[in-house]
């Protein structure tokens, strides 16, 4: 009895495998998309020294009571420079943008900011990348939106595009209610 459909087995197998391959190719899944498990969780407790003399420390306590956009950047990172104008515009429009200067020498970061504009309400220095690991960083730039209760609501592992900026603005507006 089983002989008859054993005949179709190779075809069935090919269809099954083809289905898997087709799904992997067409479903828009990227093998290096590692996801953002911090979304929905309380932002990691960090406490970073300020970049500017006389500036304020960047601590987890800052995130209570106000929606914050936290951006990891470095002067050696070209994509950071590309997304930077979007952050400058957000800050100009009244969003609270904070920076973490990732593995960057202050003497490199300061002229970079002087040249491109400094949108950051405060900047913490993460010289050795420890805060990066706390935030599950895989590179720079990455951007987080943290709500009034200190919970991460958005994590973008890429340089911001104008669409991303739009999305962040809408989300911040929503969360600020």
């Amino acid at each position, binding site marked *: 009895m089983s002989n008859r459909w054993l005949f179709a087995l190779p075809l069935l197998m090919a269809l099954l495998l083809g289905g898997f391959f087709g799904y992997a190719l067409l479903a828009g899944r990227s093998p290096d998309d*590692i996801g953002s498990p911090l979304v929905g969780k309380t932002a990691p407790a960090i406490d970073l020294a300020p970049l500017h003399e006389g500036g304020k420390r960047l601590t987890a306590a800052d995130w209570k009571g106000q929606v914050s956009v936290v951006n990891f950047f470095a002067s050696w990172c070209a994509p950071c420079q590309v997304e930077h104008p979007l952050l400058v515009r957000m800050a100009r429009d009244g969003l609270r943008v904070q920076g973490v200067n990732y593995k960057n020498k202050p003497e490199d970061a300061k002229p970079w900011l002087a040249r491109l504009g400094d949108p950051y309400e405060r900047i913490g220095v993460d010289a050795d990348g420890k805060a990066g690991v706390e935030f599950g960083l895989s590179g720079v730039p990455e951007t987080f939106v943290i709500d009034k209760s200190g919970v991460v609501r958005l994590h973008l592992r890429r340089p911001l595009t104008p669409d991303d900026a739009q999305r962040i603005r809408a989300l911040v507006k929503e969360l600020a209610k």
Partner: protein
Amino acid sequence: MTLGVVLSAAKDLAVGRPHASGHNTARSFAALRMTLILLLLALLAAPAFAVEPDEVLADKALELRARAISAEIRCVVCQNQSIDDSNAEIARDMRRAIRDRLTKGDSDAAVVAFLRARYGDYVLLRPPFDPRTWLLWLGGPLLLLLAARLLYRGAKRRAAQVKAPPVDLSAAERRRLDALLRDDEAGRR
């Protein structure tokens, strides 16, 4: 031990005198000897480790635990390398985070949970066993069982065929066979 063997072999080669008298032969022998020595020295090269000396913990037991954990954590920028093998900056940071947490007294499971909370299941080189991965873990064994069952049934059927008594020819068939054999015999003559 390996080191000693290789070194002594290299020494034997180095002191071995060329037995040929010709100048050219001596020179080519020297070149060959040099090549062999270099090849043998290449055997001495230890595999490069990603873990750098300044990362290593003084406490041997903690360091061993850190190495064991790192070997199971996937580097987030290099797809299929553990952070123990990877030279990527972020892998180095993650190794350091593991050592920091172990030094602070975290258990191995707590350290893995720390990384998993930040980087997701992606960082586990050994995927966890949960409903999303049942097919992944069980698919192979299931397929094997299915194949074994098919093979077993096939073998049983064949055994049954062999065991069944051969059916004798009917009278008509025997007459036909005899006729054919006779024709054959006649044709050959």
